[in-house]
């Protein structure tokens, strides 16, 4: 949910190992130093452009919301038409997003995209492939492929581990969802 999870998992491995190698040098960190170290370990922050881009997207959504709400009709406060409430929210969104672009653009809480962001894109690709296939060939083959890709290529497991595990996972899902629970998942067998 919150960033410390992700950050923590980054630094943990390297730190534990480094600590083991370097003896007790790294071991005597005060909480402040530790917090600073976590901060350093965060993915590199994106510049003001990222914040402005995010604000621009919200402004576009807000303006679209305003026009669509106007088309639905606003009515009066006493007898509001369907467009009134979305209109109010859209106006607030435009105001807030403008404020973000003007005052908040220098905050460094956005992250840069890096080469490892391609992994996310690839992951989304496998998800889309899964949905496209699941309706026609059932869940088994798409699940097998998805698990294998995630293990071998996104997770850098060995070929053997990935193969064995993906078959095991699909078998387990089949047993749980189809055999035991009788859930109506589209399946081949």
């Amino acid at each position: 949910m919150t960033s410390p999870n992700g950050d923590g998992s980054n630094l943990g491995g390297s730190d534990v190992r480094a600590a083991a190698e370097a003896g007790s040098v790294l071991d005597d960190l005060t909480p402040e130093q530790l917090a600073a170290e976590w901060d350093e370990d965060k993915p590199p922050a994106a510049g003001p452009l990222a914040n402005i881009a995010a604000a621009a997207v919200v402004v576009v959504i807000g303006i679209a919301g305003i026009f669509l709400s106007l088309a639905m009709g606003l009515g009066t406060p006493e007898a509001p038409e369907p467009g009134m409430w979305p209109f109010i929210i859209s106006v607030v969104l435009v105001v807030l997003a403008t404020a973000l672009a003007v005052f908040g653009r220098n905050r460094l809480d956005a992250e840069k995209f890096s080469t490892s962001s391609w992994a996310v894109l690839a992951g989304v690709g496998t998800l889309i492939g899964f949905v496209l296939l699941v309706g026609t060939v059932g869940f088994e083959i798409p699940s097998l492929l998805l698990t294998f890709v995630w293990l071998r290529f996104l997770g850098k497991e060995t070929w053997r581990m990935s193969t064995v595990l993906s078959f095991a996972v699909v078998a387990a899902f089949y047993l749980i969802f189809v055999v035991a629970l009788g859930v109506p998942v589209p399946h081949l067998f």
Partner: protein
Amino acid sequence: MEFFEPVINGFGVVLEPMNLLYCLLGVMIGMLIGVLPGLGPAATIAILLPLTYGVEPVTAIIMLAGIFYGAQYGGTITSVLLRLPGEASAVVTVFDGYALAKQGKAGTALGIAAIGSFIGGTVSIIGLTLLAPIVASFALDFGPPEYTALALLGILLVATVSNGGKLKSVIAAGLGLLLATVGRDGFTGESRFTFGSLSLADGLDFVPIAMGIFGLGEILYNLEQRHNKVQAPAKVANVWPSRQDLKQSSGAIGRGSVLGFFLGILPGGGATLSSLAAYAMEKKRAKNPERFGRGAVEGVAAPESANNAAATSSFIPLLTLGIPANATMAIIFGALLIQGVTPGPQLVANDPELFWGVVNSMYIGNILLLIMSIPLVGIFVKILRVRAAILAPITVLITLIGVYTIRNSVFDIWLVIFFGVIGYLMKKFGFEPGPLVLAFVLGALLEENLRRSLLVFGGDAAGFVTRPISGVLLLVFLMVIFLPLIQSLFKKARAKKATNTDDPSRKNEKESV
């Protein structure tokens, strides 16, 4: 004795085998995801929502609640042994917990944390038992204007107290409110933002949104972050803390429990904030604060008691007012709505079995967790060896297949993927997903009450201010918005003075904040 009758009946509900089983299942899952870094309790609860369709409402909520407070126990283990917090609420436990582990006292730290969590949880359940009916009876008189103000304040507080940028969090909440308007307008029956799509005619379903933004979004985000494989630690010995350790930390446990209980009730409070606050308080109170960070038992005891107490007490606003106090509660709120139960002041009176069943299940859950954290801790330490890379595809499949099973709809899988990508991008650009989901859940309630109030007032918005309770709530709402603005203006004025009196390094400092 009249008061206690439904309370005791609630134990009857808990002791039904089905409920006991789901309680055990819930706390075990909670403990597991607490131990495994990556997925937080909100994401896990979101992903497991489809599992709750087939069971009774009480049973479902007992399990989901168990995941939430179970995660508070589990998060400690990785904090202490690996110096990486399994949960955000266990971050401060790292400081002294890991220091203790280095001194060969990992067992002591884990034991104290488990006992502190147990006491914190129990104190909080007792507080919940006593306080919740009172709050509920007070709120029975609330009309639409009060609910409008309460929902507005709740959303704003959750957005501003969350750890992301405030402005971005409020924007996320606004987007959530806008998403909630998709579908049929409750008053006129007209379609809004459906673009002619039949799948959108009934509005966006809560489950795909929660599963996407919290669950899948987090999985995708972790995909990018994960580089190192975690090494599993060595064995943990002597988990039973000594009498002296217990004596030393008893004060910290007591104070942490009470602080956690009260911070948990506040919207936006919750487990993470209260663990930080409890640690800070202990450090301030200590005779030699330099011990903290070097293996002070109190530094483990206080935050662990507090986060568990807060996890429990954050059920109070949900179950008595129908206003979720944090993102996890928003998902449980959604789960209740799916079950046809509307949480609110009437819940205690109309559905005592559900209310007391859930509350009392927490006693059982905490006892189970104490057993898992002390005698059985070795098993969970072993689980640390499971690599995140192996879990990721399994959670993805659970999400995709799970959401399909709800309505046998492929469209819902598309929705989950869409919101998963949104959730990932939000995290990337520094927007907290919590406020969006919370606002989405409260959106319909907010609009309905706003429009009803305006009908009652004959279109005159001044009516909100003249009613005492809604007036006060709106005043607090305005204060939450404007106080920080005024403060930052003052700060800026002061900083300007400072830069004028030749200090060039200061300027850079300010920019990087």
